[in-house]
């Protein structure tokens, strides 16, 4: 897909060279813009309004890919690729990791807690957007010159030339910034152990004192038929123990209830045995009947 788009925009670049100051782009691009633009907007909206952060992340990723496409279409090939690789590939994945770490929280709900916040936000958003559009509208940018010569020596080379000459300092500084950020992230997430690690004995004693579960937590999934992680293990008396399921699933309420499962299985077993016994019985009767015929 990407390659095709690249080719597409390549064709665009050609007409760009023919007409330096163009007033409109190729219909193909227009078509692509309207389709993908719509999708991008929808994706953005979904990012905002999806209940679960995972979904938001996915929608955002989609939007970003579309943006990458637009970059390519605008002759920013390098950025387009970087967008896909760095953003969609790296950053969004980072997001997903964090989502996984944090798991589902009460914060996910879209229910507004601050009075009037939502309406204010929407109002501001609306006004802001309208004003922005108005601003662009009366900026009178109806003519534009393409990137033909700029990209003449190749887009990447052009960027490189600029980065390492004109913007070299900014470049270096961003490098420093990145490193700092990395270190900062480590510092923030790193947890210094302040006290000595407890020995097993101590932990055990603590548990006794707190009168908690003494033995290690029971393992989930005694019914190995399914993805057992979401099934509570059964205590000796047959009651399922929530403890055996990880907290994330618990909070999501995704524990599968197995109390009736056991009954169902029992039924199934009986039925099967029934069937087998029935067949045997039939033969017997047949046999008996033959005997009786003799």
């Amino acid at each position, binding site marked *: 897909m990407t390659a095709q788009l690249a080719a597409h925009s390549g064709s665009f670049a050609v007409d760009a060279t023919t007409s330096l100051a163009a007033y409109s782009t190729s219909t193909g691009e227009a078509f692509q813009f309207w389709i993908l633009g719509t999708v991008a907007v929808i994706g953005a909206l979904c990012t905002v309004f999806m209940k679960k952060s995972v979904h938001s*992340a996915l929608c955002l990723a989609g939007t970003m890919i579309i943006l990458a496409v637009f970059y390519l279409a605008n002759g920013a090939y390098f950025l387009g690729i970087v967008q896909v690789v760095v953003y969609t590939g790296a950053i969004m994945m980072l997001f997903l990791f964090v989502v996984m770490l944090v798991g589902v929280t009460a914060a996910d709900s879209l229910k507004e807690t601050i009075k009037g916040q939502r309406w204010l936000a929407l109002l501001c958003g609306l006004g802001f957007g309208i004003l922005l559009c108005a601003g662009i509208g009366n900026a009178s940018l109806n003519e534009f010159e393409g990137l033909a010569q700029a990209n003449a020596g190749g887009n990447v080379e052009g960027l490189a030339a600029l980065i390492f000459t004109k913007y070299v300092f900014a470049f270096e500084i961003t490098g420093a910034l990145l490193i700092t950020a990395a270190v900062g992230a480590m510092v923030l997430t790193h947890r210094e152990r302040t006290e000595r690690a407890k020995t097993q004995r101590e932990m055990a004693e603590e548990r006794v004192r707190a009168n908690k579960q003494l033995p290690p937590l029971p393992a989930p999934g005694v019914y190995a038929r399914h993805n057992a992680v979401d099934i509570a293990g059964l205590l000796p008396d047959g009651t399922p123990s929530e403890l055996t399921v990880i907290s994330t699933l618990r909070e999501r309420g995704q524990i599968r209830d197995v109390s009736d499962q056991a009954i169902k299985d029992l039924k199934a077993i009986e039925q099967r045995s029934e069937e087998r016994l029935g067949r045997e019985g039939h033969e017997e009767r047949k046999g008996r009947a033959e005997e009786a015929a003799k």
Partner: protein
Amino acid sequence: MNPVNYLYLAALLFTIGASGVLIRRNAIVVFMCIELMLNACNLAFVAFSRMHGNLDGQIIAFFTMVVAAAEVVVGLAIIVSLFRSRHSASVDDASLMKL
């Protein structure tokens, strides 16, 4: 079609992202919205660079990405430690600025 439309799109996306920042409580989603806004800006830059026929716009967009990456790294780290400390990723819970 006129590349100005890209700008309109960028404006739209930016606004959506901004509203998202205001509406969502989950810090992660808020972050995503911020990313969305950044991307909108990038799009605008790229479109501008095309209009003016030079690559400076793209350079800026490039830098934006780098900075965004850094910002995300730190931001997420903050979120994680926040979650650790108060077992919630809601921005409203961190309302200690209140008098």
